[in-house]
């Protein structure tokens, strides 16, 4: 399939202006006659639904939680980037653009990233106006902190709860539209399929999670903002409900899936403690502003951290990357942590951990300053580990955190199915092979507040949309397929729980498609996943029925999709025989163990098409061009 990203011609600085000017507008009086379906109420979905409601569209918004305010975005801690240059430290739109393209290891689309950097300014303004209580200086100005991969201070934050406050801002805007009657909210509702008629996305089939009813929603456009798929690894920092179902089912209806193997492993999470463990807890990247990362120089050093003198400690990031030190990007920090642990220098009972030590910062600034900056994170750490990080260094280890891959979209955030738009973590668009900290919140809100409302309008204004209703045979076909899927899950009545399959899949993914990957390992994983999937469909047990609240059934549907996605991720990772960003192929590294890109052969977006249950996915390539940021071997030394 030939992929046309529809990047506006001309200088990148004017691309978005030009695109907006060229878009067709919907007559204000006609907007309410158009229904837009928004799946997801996280930062991307809530901001898109609210903004389109404000414009006058008839919006329906869906989430599987009991309230839109609980979307996974709520858990983001550290902050959101914007090129405001309030600190007068040399920041600019161009610099944020540059850092993000470089941080993504030259696997993102320049024009998208430039627009993201432009929109970052408006996002902060919008959120402040909504009452988001960002951190302030005594004089009343907004303050900033630093995040990895940047040498300027451009991250805005609300204590350790930035995602919560941004989401509440968007949620409140959304509820205002619910009251105004422009948005109808459908909580506890899960999208289970996409309805495509005459090649256009025209609706969705949902399951009411309380009553089990299947419902059809018809619309003129569908916006998927259903989040990322990190939970394919079972253990991740994502919320337990985060899943790929909405995206995956759209994929099976024709939307290409781009760069599925690009996953982000976050360097600072609380290490795993036992097999009962259900999720991993992130310790925000912001901690690397003041915490220093180290391990003992000697292998197997079992002394308490305070008994290891300074000259027997290896502050390995400061040593290897003197110019960025502890603030190297996430992929680099994670790989280095794995490396020192593989050498046998890891700390804690399992040996899978490194220290994040605040004692120097506490000495320099005083405990109260550290408490003020990170108090809630320290409390969380203490609650989980029973150790006091003001006294002993934190123990941290990398964990799956974010997925850069997602449904392929063009510059207008439209997928390969006309009328199906994808926003937020669910699309692949802006982060290339590695996302810089504090830029997912930025992207979600840029998509939702400032891009989707225009581009969806343009689509509606320029498309021929015939009238469709529930009785259309294509609609009934999808409904019956969804019903069949549910019935078959309930009727297997095998011996293994859904979670046991999910755990096993997660382990395969982590071992072979995690922090470092090899062709051989990926090949093995593909075989294992196929086998596991086969066993799932013969031996899973899903108790209860389909006509009431049934959490096992919800999980079963999601895990069934993960079992298919996992294979595609491994295929994509095997196919990409280079290292870039978070995708580290052992076969492709520099002499000192850094990721070695292969621009000659792999400077493209890999977009995969679904071809059927047991047939190989079809690869389409979108070549990437770099006209502004000079493509170099990424170095943070």
């Amino acid at each position, binding site marked *: 399939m030939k992929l046309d990203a529809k990047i506006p011609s001309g200088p990148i600085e004017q691309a978005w202006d030009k695109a907006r000017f060229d878009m067709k507008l919907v007559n204000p009086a006609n907007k309410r006659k158009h229904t837009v379906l928004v799946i997801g109420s996280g930062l991307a979905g809530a*901001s898109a639904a609210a*903004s389109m409601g404000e414009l006058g569209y008839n919006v329906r918004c869906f989430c599987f*939680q*009991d*309230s*839109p*305010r*609980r979307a*996974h975005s*709520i*858990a983001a801690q550290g902050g959101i980037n914007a090129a*405001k240059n309030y600190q007068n430290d040399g920041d600019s739109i161009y610099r944020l653009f540059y850092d993000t393209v470089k941080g993504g290891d030259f696997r993102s689309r320049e024009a998208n990233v430039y627009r993201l950097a432009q929109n970052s300014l408006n996002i*902060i*303004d*919008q*959120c*402040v*106006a*909504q*009452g988001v*209580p*960002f*951190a*302030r200086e*005594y004089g*009343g100005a*907004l303050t900033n902190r630093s995040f990895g991969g940047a040498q300027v201070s451009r991250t805005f934050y609300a204590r350790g*709860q930035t995602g*919560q406050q941004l989401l509440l801002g968007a*949620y*409140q*805007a959304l*509820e*205002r539209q619910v*009251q105004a009657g422009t948005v109808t909210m459908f909580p506890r509702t899960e999208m289970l399929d996409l309805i495509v008629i005459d090649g256009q996305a025209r609706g969705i089939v949902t399951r*009411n999670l*309380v*009553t089990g*009813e299947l*419902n059809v929603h018809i619309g003129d456009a569908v916006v998927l903002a259903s989040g990322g798929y990190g939970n394919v690894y079972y253990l991740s920092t994502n919320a*337990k409900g985060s899943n790929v179902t909405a995206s995956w089912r759209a994929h099976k209806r024709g939307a290409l899936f781009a760069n599925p193997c690009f996953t982000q492993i976050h360097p600072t999470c609380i290490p795993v*403690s*036992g097999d*009962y*463990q*259900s*999720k991993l807890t992130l310790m925000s990247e912001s901690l690397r502003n003041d915490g220093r990362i180290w391990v003992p120089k000697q292998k197997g050093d079992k002394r308490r951290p305070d008994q290891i003198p300074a000259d027997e400690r290896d502050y390995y990031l400061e040593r290897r990357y003197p110019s960025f030190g502890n603030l190297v990007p996430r992929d680099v920090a994670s790989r280095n942590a794995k490396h020192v642990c593989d050498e046998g220098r890891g700390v804690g009972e399992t040996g899978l951990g490194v220290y994040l030590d605040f004692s120097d910062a506490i000495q320099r600034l005083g405990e109260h300053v550290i408490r003020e900056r990170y108090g809630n994170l320290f*409390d*969380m750490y203490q*609650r*989980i580990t029973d150790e006091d990080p003001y006294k002993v260094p934190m123990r941290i280890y990398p964990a799956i955190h974010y997925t850069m891959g997602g449904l392929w979209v063009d510059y207008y955030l439209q997928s390969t199915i006309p009328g199906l738009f994808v926003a937020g973590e669910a699309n692949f668009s802006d982060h290339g092979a590695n996302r810089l900290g504090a830029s997912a919140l930025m992207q979600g809100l840029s998509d939702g*507040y*400032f891009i989707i409302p225009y581009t969806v309008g343009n689509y509606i204004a320029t498309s021929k949309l015939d009238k469709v209703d529930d009785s259309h045979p294509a609609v009934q076909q999808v409904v019956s397929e969804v019903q069949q899927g549910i019935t078959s899950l309930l009727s297997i009545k095998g011996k293994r*729980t859904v*979670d046991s399959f999910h755990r096993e899949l997660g382990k395969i993914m982590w071992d072979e498609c995690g922090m470092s990957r090899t062709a051989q390992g990926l090949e093995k994983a593909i075989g294992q996943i196929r086998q596991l999937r086969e066993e799932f469909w013969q031996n899973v047990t899903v*108790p*209860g029925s389909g006509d*009431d609240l049934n*959490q*096992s059934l919800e999980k079963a549907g999601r895990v069934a999709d993960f079992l298919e996605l996992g294979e595609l991720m491994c295929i994509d990772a095997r196919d990409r025989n280079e290292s870039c960003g978070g995708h580290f192929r052992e076969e492709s590294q520099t002499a000192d163990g850094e990721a070695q890109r292969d621009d000659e052969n792999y400077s493209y977006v890999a977009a995969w098409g679904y071809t059927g249950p047991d047939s190989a996915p079809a690869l389409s390539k979108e070549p990437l061009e770099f006209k502004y940021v000079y493509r170099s071997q990424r170095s943070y030394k």
Partner: protein
Amino acid sequence: MKLTLKIWRQKNRDEKGRFFTYPVENVNPEMSMLECLDVLNESLIERGEEPVAFEHDCREGICGSCGFMINGVAHGPQSATTACQLTMRHFKDGQELTIEPWRAAAFPLIKDLVVDRRALDRIIQAGGYISVSTGNAPDGNNIPVGKDIADRAMDAAACIGCGACVAACPNASAALFTGAKISHLGILPQGKPEQDRRALSMVAQMNTEPFGSCTNIGECTAACPKEIPLEVIATMNRDYRGATCRKRDDLVQVVAPVTGWSSSSKS
């Protein structure tokens, strides 16, 4: 560790519920309360029984999905801690824990430990926002906000909407929840223009829902996993009193509470 869990099971709102007693072995002191329920549920499923339905998502104490009464205390014995972050090391080997859902008329039961908290969303709909449409905002630094003001707003804004305050209150009042939003937005300069209107509408909606009245007992703040201070209720009362004088003739609209889930009763 071994524990005995006495858990409220109820198939739906219409059927009667009762406590079931489940022994759970191999409880690791490091696991969270929810992970302990996971372990129980896995064994129930393996025995062919339906697992205990409970709500959860982030498991980091911020989404507000989880929560139930543990031995009569909302979110359990550890202060400032949600059930998902409550580790089992706070219990003794052999202990019996009684686990039941939030009980309040405004939170109708859905199944087992899952209740319907949409009343809280409706209170926000009534006025828990600043009316600023996308694109309408001045530069972020145009309105200086002193650090002390921003900090106080943040203290109130930290509410996660879990409903523990309502469950803990002998009157099942939502005053702490409503007061937290009224305080968060009212303290900030951006929120001042709508301060009166907000207080009137949100309080009116709260009173329309079957929540009880606040009699200043303070159980809410004691149970609150985010330690929202009681003073937000005083702020709400002050704002409301002022607003009723100034805006006495304004029409206040409320939304009719919806309790059904079937798609026909939705919009």
